[in-house]
């Protein structure tokens, strides 16, 4: 109420910017024009030229943070002026612009050298953060700075883009992960290449448990099934061999030439389909999965252009092996009867028998073949000579140990110590930067880069190991092929478990497909082929009585 009565009189109201004006409430307040002054930060003075703020000159570097305020300086009048009491309109007042602590007494006229105004020049800041698309100067400006930072490295290949087919495959894999599907169906998707990153995701699959009332929760390991059939893959991603829960792997109808030895890491594999590829041989490590205790129970090998031993005759006579009658040609089913209780786990699903071995190929640490014999696994060969055979199959053994002795010489003894080159390569192989390592040796001769590239490729495929001692190796100094014959077994036991019967039948009925080539790699001379120690039989459990089955339904 008091306020309203006050406003009937002309009052002095202090408004913005410190001006005292006299207003009538009935009138519109009229603000005086802003003074035509501007605060200059460099000189700490007013300038009456322009109201534009002066451009901050960063390069001078002499302005203290106190003076950096972007807003207009405060304008105030001296309220405590003693002349305020007898204030009359129109009296010129002292006006100050800026904060009170920036006002200097008139006596302090000592020149501040730091605050000397520098001449303003029109130069451009590099890191202004603002550039225009049409501004061509940015490229040339930055180029000068970057040129001196360039490392003397070789040009790197561009990263490979993911193909459409792989994108689709990745989408399917993500779907399977979301829904907890263990069967990953990548049939006939036109895949030409599959990267590690795509397959790696499958390692994270989690089994979604089936939960119902009154059923105890049982955690179960996922049983992954991957179907890559009918694609155009020429190489497998190494990460597929890290999927420990992989149970079914179908590679049927691809263009694979080599099965990586890392296959032996898939201990839970039950079903493996390799048919209709370009495999010329299999890794010796695959035999691990066929051994007693291995889970692999369904292996499909044909049709593949497997390397055959020279002189494999098609008409083979049955031979007597000890007391057991075995057949070296794809013979009929054989029955083994055991008059004792047996477990099914005592008999492997696949039985193999050693047939023969090719000569050994020797390499130096660079991968140059030194021996006369060359396995030439990359080329389109279909027949290799046989050096040592089991003499039970009509293989024409050549017995040419000259390659072995010519390298060893007469008096020197082969050493099991790996070369320093190989050891350094293995050390490189352990590095996580292996794919980039070849670019770090720009001035070295090309063969070292070739070796590093080879190591990188092998790591991508899952790595090579010595078939004998299981050490990782990069360039195998020795490799050779051993041929084996396969038979499948069937186990039967009567209800009272008094006796057991094992039927074995040939894996194939085609005589030209008996010998399956397995490639062995050795890390040193010690791990070379040991033909004399080889067990040349079928490794059936002892104590059985073997006879030829007249018809399979004998019991």
């Amino acid at each position, binding site marked *: 109420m008091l306020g309203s009565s006050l406003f009937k009189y002309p009052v002095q109201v202090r408004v913005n910017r410190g001006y005292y004006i006299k207003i009538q409430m009935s009138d519109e307040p009229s603000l005086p024009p802003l003074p035509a002054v501007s605060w200059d930060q460099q000189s700490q003075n007013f300038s009456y030229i322009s109201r534009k703020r002066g451009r901050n000159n960063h390069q001078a570097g002499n302005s203290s943070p106190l003076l950096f305020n972007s807003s207009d300086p405060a304008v105030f009048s001296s309220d405590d002026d003693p002349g305020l009491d007898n204030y009359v309109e129109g009296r010129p007042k002292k006006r100050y612009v800026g904060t009170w602590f920036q006002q200097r007494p008139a006596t302090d006229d000592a020149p501040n050298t730091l605050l000397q105004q520098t001449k303003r020049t029109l130069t451009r800041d590099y890191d202004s953060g603002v550039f225009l698309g049409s501004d061509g100067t940015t490229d040339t400006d930055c180029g000068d700075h970057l040129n001196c930072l360039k490392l003397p490295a070789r040009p790197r290949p561009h990263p490979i883009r993911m193909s459409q087919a792989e994108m689709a495959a990745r989408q399917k894999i993500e779907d399977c992960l979301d829904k907890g599907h263990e069967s990953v169906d990548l049939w006939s998707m036109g895949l030409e290449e599959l990267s590690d990153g795509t397959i790696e995701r499958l390692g994270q699959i989690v089994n979604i448990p089936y939960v119902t009332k009154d059923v105890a929760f049982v955690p179960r390991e996922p049983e992954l099934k991957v179907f890559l059939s009918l694609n155009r893959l020429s190489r497998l991603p190494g990460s597929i061999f890290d999927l420990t829960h992989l149970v079914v792997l179908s590679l049927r109808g691809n263009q694979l030439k080599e099965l990586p030895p890392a296959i032996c890491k898939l201990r839970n594999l039950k079903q493996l389909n390799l048919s209709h590829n370009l495999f010329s041989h299999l890794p010796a490590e695959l035999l691990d999965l066929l051994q007693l205790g291995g889970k692999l129970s369904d292996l499909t090998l044909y049709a593949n252009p497997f390397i055959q031993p020279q002189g494999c005759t098609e008409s083979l006579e049955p031979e007597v092996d000890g007391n057991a009658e075995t057949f070296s040609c794809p013979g009929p089913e054989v029955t083994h009867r055991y008059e004792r209780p047996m477990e099914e786990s005592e008999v492997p699903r696949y039985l193999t028998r050693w047939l023969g071995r090719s000569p050994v190929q020797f390499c130096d640490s660079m991968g140059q073949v030194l021996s006369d014999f060359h396995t030439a696994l990359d080329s389109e060969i279909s027949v290799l000579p046989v050096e040592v055979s089991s003499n039970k199959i009509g293989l024409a053994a050549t017995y040419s140990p000259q390659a072995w002795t010519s*390298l060893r010489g007469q008096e020197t003894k082969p050493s*099991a110590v790996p070369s320093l*080159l190989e050891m*350094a*390569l293995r050390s*490189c192989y*352990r590095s996580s930067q292996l794919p980039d390592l070849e670019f770090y040796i720009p001035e*070295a001769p090309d063969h070292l880069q070739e070796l590093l590239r080879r190591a990188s490729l092998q790591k991508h495929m899952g790595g090579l190991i010595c078939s004998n001692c299981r050490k990782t190796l990069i360039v195998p100094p020795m490799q050779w092929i051993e041929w084996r014959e396969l038979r499948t077994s069937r186990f039967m036991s009567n209800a009272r478990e008094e006796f057991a019967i094992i039927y074995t039948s040939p894996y194939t009925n085609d005589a030209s497909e008996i010998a399956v080539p397995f490639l062995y790699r050795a890390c040193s001379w010690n791990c070379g082929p040991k033909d004399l120690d080889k067990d040349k039989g079928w490794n059936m459990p002892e104590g059985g009585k073997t006879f030829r089955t007249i018809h399979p339904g004998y019991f």
Partner: protein
Amino acid sequence: MKRLYSASGDDADPSAPSKYVTLVSGDGFEFVVLREAAKISPIIKGMLDPRSQFAEAKDARCVFQEMSGLVLDKVVEYFHYWYRYKDSEDVPDMDIPVELCLELLAAADYLGLDQANMSTK
């Protein structure tokens, strides 16, 4: 020439070269190595061949300007590793740190420490 040939004679000769050789790295580290172990490298073997007129052969001292002491240390370790295990069946692994692998790769290539040379000592 005659004198040189006689110096390269059998080991019983009192003027036969010493059992040890000195390998010097680029940064001045010296390693005294068994001559027989160092001769696994065909390069060092050629340097130390008494029939050659190399200064290295006379002084039994090889300087490798381009190798650092760290790398030559590993190379020398390898020489003795090879010498120790060349005839044994069971060979333990020699540790090569990853940060040295590239330099050792180049050094091994330079010294010709290849599998083919390993087998024929």
